[in-house]
Protein backbone atom coordinates (compact mmCIF):
# COMPACT_ATOMS: atom_id res chain seq x y z
CA UNK A 1 0.00 0.00 0.00
CA UNK A 2 1.25 3.45 -0.86
CA UNK A 3 1.84 5.61 2.18
CA UNK A 4 1.21 9.30 2.59
CA UNK A 5 4.82 10.05 1.73
CA UNK A 6 6.66 8.94 -1.35
CA UNK A 7 9.95 8.73 0.47
CA UNK A 8 11.26 9.20 3.98
CA UNK A 9 14.56 9.07 5.84
CA UNK A 10 15.63 9.30 9.46
CA UNK A 11 18.96 10.39 10.81
CA UNK A 12 20.24 10.55 14.38
CA UNK A 13 23.60 11.87 15.46
CA UNK A 14 25.44 13.39 18.43
CA UNK A 15 25.35 17.14 18.95
CA UNK A 16 28.94 17.65 17.82
CA UNK A 17 29.77 20.63 15.65
CA UNK A 18 31.52 18.50 13.03
CA UNK A 19 28.13 16.87 12.37
CA UNK A 20 26.76 20.18 11.03
CA UNK A 21 28.29 19.51 7.61
CA UNK A 22 27.29 15.83 7.76
CA UNK A 23 23.66 16.75 8.46
CA UNK A 24 23.26 19.35 5.71
CA UNK A 25 25.06 17.23 3.09
CA UNK A 26 22.94 14.16 3.93
CA UNK A 27 19.65 16.09 3.73
CA UNK A 28 20.79 17.71 0.47
CA UNK A 29 21.59 14.27 -0.99
CA UNK A 30 18.09 13.09 -0.01
CA UNK A 31 16.51 16.25 -1.48
CA UNK A 32 18.40 15.77 -4.75
CA UNK A 33 15.74 13.30 -5.99
CA UNK A 34 13.35 16.26 -6.40
CA UNK A 35 15.80 17.67 -8.93
CA UNK A 36 16.26 21.05 -7.22
CA UNK A 37 18.29 23.88 -8.71
CA UNK A 38 21.71 24.63 -7.22
CA UNK A 39 20.15 27.63 -5.49
CA UNK A 40 17.31 25.59 -3.95
CA UNK A 41 19.80 22.99 -2.75
CA UNK A 42 21.94 25.72 -1.17
CA UNK A 43 18.81 27.10 0.56
CA UNK A 44 18.01 23.67 2.06
CA UNK A 45 21.61 23.10 3.18
CA UNK A 46 21.73 26.52 4.84
CA UNK A 47 18.39 26.07 6.65
CA UNK A 48 19.43 22.61 7.95
CA UNK A 49 22.79 23.98 9.06
CA UNK A 50 21.06 26.77 11.01
CA UNK A 51 18.65 24.43 12.80
CA UNK A 52 21.32 21.86 13.69
CA UNK A 53 23.69 24.58 14.93
CA UNK A 54 20.89 26.00 17.10
CA UNK A 55 20.38 22.57 18.68
CA UNK A 56 24.10 22.22 19.41
CA UNK A 57 24.72 25.73 20.76
CA UNK A 58 21.40 26.61 22.36
CA UNK A 59 19.55 23.31 22.88
CA UNK A 60 22.42 21.37 24.37
CA UNK A 61 24.75 24.33 25.13
CA UNK A 62 27.65 22.25 23.81
CA UNK A 63 26.89 19.27 26.07
CA UNK A 64 26.40 15.94 24.40
CA UNK A 65 22.91 15.04 23.25
CA UNK A 66 21.16 13.58 20.26
CA UNK A 67 19.76 15.41 17.27
CA UNK A 68 17.20 13.73 15.08
CA UNK A 69 16.29 14.59 11.50
CA UNK A 70 13.32 13.15 9.64
CA UNK A 71 12.96 14.17 6.00
CA UNK A 72 9.92 13.34 3.91
CA UNK A 73 9.11 13.83 0.27
CA UNK A 74 5.62 14.08 -1.15
CA UNK A 75 4.86 15.35 -4.63
CA UNK A 76 7.29 18.21 -5.17
CA UNK A 77 7.67 19.14 -1.49
CA UNK A 78 10.35 18.24 1.01
CA UNK A 79 9.51 18.39 4.70
CA UNK A 80 12.41 18.41 7.15
CA UNK A 81 11.94 17.92 10.90
CA UNK A 82 14.94 18.64 13.12
CA UNK A 83 14.54 17.93 16.82
CA UNK A 84 16.59 17.86 19.99
CA UNK A 85 15.94 16.99 23.64
CA UNK A 86 17.73 20.07 24.88
CA UNK A 87 16.70 22.92 27.14
CA UNK A 88 14.07 24.43 24.85
CA UNK A 89 13.53 28.03 23.75
CA UNK A 90 12.31 30.40 26.45
CA UNK A 91 10.78 32.94 24.11
CA UNK A 92 10.06 31.70 20.59
CA UNK A 93 8.81 35.10 19.38
CA UNK A 94 12.07 36.70 20.49
CA UNK A 95 14.18 33.93 18.94
CA UNK A 96 12.48 34.47 15.57
CA UNK A 97 13.42 38.16 15.50
CA UNK A 98 16.23 39.11 13.11
CA UNK A 99 19.50 39.99 14.85
CA UNK A 100 18.30 38.70 18.23
CA UNK A 101 20.72 36.30 19.88
CA UNK A 102 20.88 34.99 23.42
CA UNK A 103 24.61 34.43 22.94
CA UNK A 104 26.20 37.60 21.49
CA UNK A 105 29.51 36.74 23.16
CA UNK A 106 29.87 33.78 20.78
CA UNK A 107 29.79 36.08 17.72
CA UNK A 108 26.34 34.75 16.84
CA UNK A 109 24.51 37.01 14.40
CA UNK A 110 20.94 36.23 15.44
CA UNK A 111 20.02 35.51 11.82
CA UNK A 112 19.38 31.76 12.12
CA UNK A 113 15.57 31.74 12.16
CA UNK A 114 15.38 34.66 9.71
CA UNK A 115 17.44 32.64 7.23
CA UNK A 116 15.36 29.48 7.78
CA UNK A 117 12.17 31.49 7.22
CA UNK A 118 13.35 33.23 4.09
CA UNK A 119 14.99 30.18 2.49
CA UNK A 120 12.16 27.70 3.19
CA UNK A 121 8.45 28.05 2.38
CA UNK A 122 7.24 27.14 5.88
CA UNK A 123 8.95 27.02 9.27
CA UNK A 124 7.23 25.81 12.44
CA UNK A 125 8.83 25.92 15.87
CA UNK A 126 7.64 23.75 18.73
CA UNK A 127 9.57 24.11 21.94
CA UNK A 128 9.01 23.06 25.53
CA UNK A 129 11.32 24.27 28.28
CA UNK A 130 13.33 21.35 29.62
CA UNK A 131 12.07 18.95 26.95
CA UNK A 132 13.46 20.19 23.70
CA UNK A 133 12.79 21.86 20.39
CA UNK A 134 11.40 20.66 17.08
CA UNK A 135 11.72 22.67 13.89
CA UNK A 136 9.59 21.61 10.92
CA UNK A 137 10.39 23.18 7.57
CA UNK A 138 8.89 22.72 4.13
CA UNK A 139 10.12 23.68 0.73
CA UNK A 140 8.39 23.27 -2.61
CA UNK A 141 10.75 22.41 -5.45
CA UNK A 142 9.41 23.68 -8.75
CA UNK A 143 9.74 21.15 -11.53
CA UNK A 144 11.57 23.36 -14.02
CA UNK A 145 12.52 20.83 -16.67
CA UNK A 146 9.16 19.11 -16.82
CA UNK A 147 7.51 22.46 -17.22
CA UNK A 148 9.85 23.14 -20.13
CA UNK A 149 9.04 19.72 -21.60
CA UNK A 150 5.29 20.33 -21.31
CA UNK A 151 5.73 23.61 -23.09
CA UNK A 152 7.71 21.93 -25.82
CA UNK A 153 5.01 19.26 -26.18
CA UNK A 154 2.40 21.99 -26.47
CA UNK A 155 4.39 23.66 -29.17
CA UNK A 156 4.87 20.36 -31.01
CA UNK A 157 1.15 19.55 -30.58
CA UNK A 158 0.15 22.91 -31.97
CA UNK A 159 2.10 22.38 -35.14
Amino acid at each position, binding site marked *: MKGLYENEMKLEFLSK*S*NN*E*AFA*RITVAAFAAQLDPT*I*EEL*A*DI*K*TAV*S*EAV*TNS*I*IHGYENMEGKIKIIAKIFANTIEIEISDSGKGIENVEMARK*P*LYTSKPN*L*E*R*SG*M*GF*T*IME*SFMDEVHIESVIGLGTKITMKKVIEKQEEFENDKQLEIIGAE
Partner: protein
Amino acid sequence: MESEFLKEDKLLLIKITEEIDHHSTEKIRRMADNEITRYMPRKVLFDFSKVSFMDSAGIGMIIGRYKTANMLGGTVQMTNVKPSIQKIFEMSGVLKIIPLIKSV
Protein backbone atom coordinates in the same frame (compact mmCIF):
# COMPACT_ATOMS: atom_id res chain seq x y z
CA MET B 1 42.97 29.40 5.32
CA GLU B 2 45.78 31.00 3.34
CA SER B 3 47.06 34.51 3.90
CA GLU B 4 49.47 36.97 2.37
CA PHE B 5 50.58 40.41 3.57
CA LEU B 6 51.44 42.99 0.92
CA LYS B 7 53.74 45.34 2.79
CA GLU B 8 53.73 48.33 0.40
CA ASP B 9 49.90 48.51 0.42
CA LYS B 10 49.56 47.36 4.04
CA LEU B 11 47.02 44.90 2.62
CA LEU B 12 46.31 41.56 4.25
CA LEU B 13 44.78 38.98 1.91
CA ILE B 14 42.97 36.16 3.65
CA LYS B 15 41.70 33.32 1.51
CA ILE B 16 39.22 31.05 3.26
CA THR B 17 39.55 27.55 1.87
CA GLU B 18 36.69 25.66 3.53
CA GLU B 19 32.95 25.75 4.13
CA ILE B 20 31.99 28.33 6.76
CA ASP B 21 29.75 27.14 9.59
CA HIS B 22 29.75 27.18 13.39
CA HIS B 23 32.26 24.32 13.38
CA SER B 24 34.83 25.91 11.09
CA THR B 25 34.52 29.54 12.27
CA GLU B 26 36.39 28.89 15.50
CA LYS B 27 39.56 28.00 13.61
CA ILE B 28 39.12 30.72 10.96
CA ARG B 29 38.54 33.32 13.69
CA ARG B 30 41.68 32.35 15.58
CA MET B 31 43.92 32.26 12.52
CA ALA B 32 42.56 35.49 11.01
CA ASP B 33 42.83 37.44 14.28
CA ASN B 34 46.37 36.17 14.62
CA GLU B 35 47.33 37.57 11.20
CA ILE B 36 45.46 40.87 11.71
CA THR B 37 47.08 41.60 15.07
CA ARG B 38 50.47 40.56 13.71
CA TYR B 39 50.50 42.83 10.62
CA MET B 40 48.07 45.58 11.66
CA PRO B 41 46.95 46.04 8.03
CA ARG B 42 45.31 49.15 6.63
CA LYS B 43 42.99 46.86 4.71
CA VAL B 44 41.95 43.23 5.14
CA LEU B 45 40.56 41.52 2.03
CA PHE B 46 38.73 38.22 2.52
CA ASP B 47 38.75 36.08 -0.62
CA PHE B 48 35.73 33.75 -0.80
CA SER B 49 36.59 32.08 -4.12
CA LYS B 50 37.16 28.74 -2.38
CA VAL B 51 34.08 28.96 -0.15
CA SER B 52 31.25 26.82 -1.50
CA PHE B 53 28.97 27.05 1.54
CA MET B 54 28.33 29.52 4.33
CA ASP B 55 25.56 29.81 6.92
CA SER B 56 24.85 32.60 9.42
CA ALA B 57 28.00 31.71 11.37
CA GLY B 58 29.87 33.57 8.61
CA ILE B 59 28.08 36.82 9.46
CA GLY B 60 29.29 36.79 13.06
CA MET B 61 32.74 35.69 11.94
CA ILE B 62 33.20 38.55 9.47
CA ILE B 63 31.81 41.18 11.88
CA GLY B 64 34.18 39.90 14.55
CA ARG B 65 37.19 40.28 12.22
CA TYR B 66 35.95 43.75 11.27
CA LYS B 67 36.03 44.65 14.94
CA THR B 68 39.58 43.38 15.33
CA ALA B 69 40.83 45.16 12.20
CA ASN B 70 38.94 48.35 12.99
CA MET B 71 40.38 48.53 16.49
CA LEU B 72 43.83 48.52 14.88
CA GLY B 73 42.88 51.19 12.32
CA GLY B 74 42.04 48.96 9.35
CA THR B 75 39.03 48.26 7.15
CA VAL B 76 37.63 44.98 5.81
CA GLN B 77 36.40 44.05 2.34
CA MET B 78 35.29 40.81 0.70
CA THR B 79 35.68 39.47 -2.82
CA ASN B 80 34.66 36.50 -5.02
CA VAL B 81 31.52 35.84 -2.97
CA LYS B 82 29.13 33.34 -4.58
CA PRO B 83 25.47 34.42 -5.06
CA SER B 84 24.12 31.98 -2.43
CA ILE B 85 26.53 33.46 0.14
CA GLN B 86 25.99 37.06 -0.96
CA LYS B 87 22.27 36.55 -0.26
CA ILE B 88 23.09 35.79 3.39
CA PHE B 89 25.34 38.84 3.74
CA GLU B 90 22.65 41.03 2.14
CA MET B 91 20.01 39.85 4.60
CA SER B 92 22.18 40.75 7.57
CA GLY B 93 22.99 44.28 6.42
CA VAL B 94 26.69 43.63 6.99
CA LEU B 95 27.64 44.83 3.48
CA LYS B 96 27.16 48.43 4.65
CA ILE B 97 30.30 48.20 6.76
CA ILE B 98 32.12 45.37 4.95
CA PRO B 99 31.64 45.94 1.21
CA LEU B 100 32.03 43.47 -1.62
CA ILE B 101 34.60 44.44 -4.22
CA LYS B 102 35.53 42.98 -7.60
CA SER B 103 38.47 40.61 -7.49
CA VAL B 104 41.94 42.12 -7.53
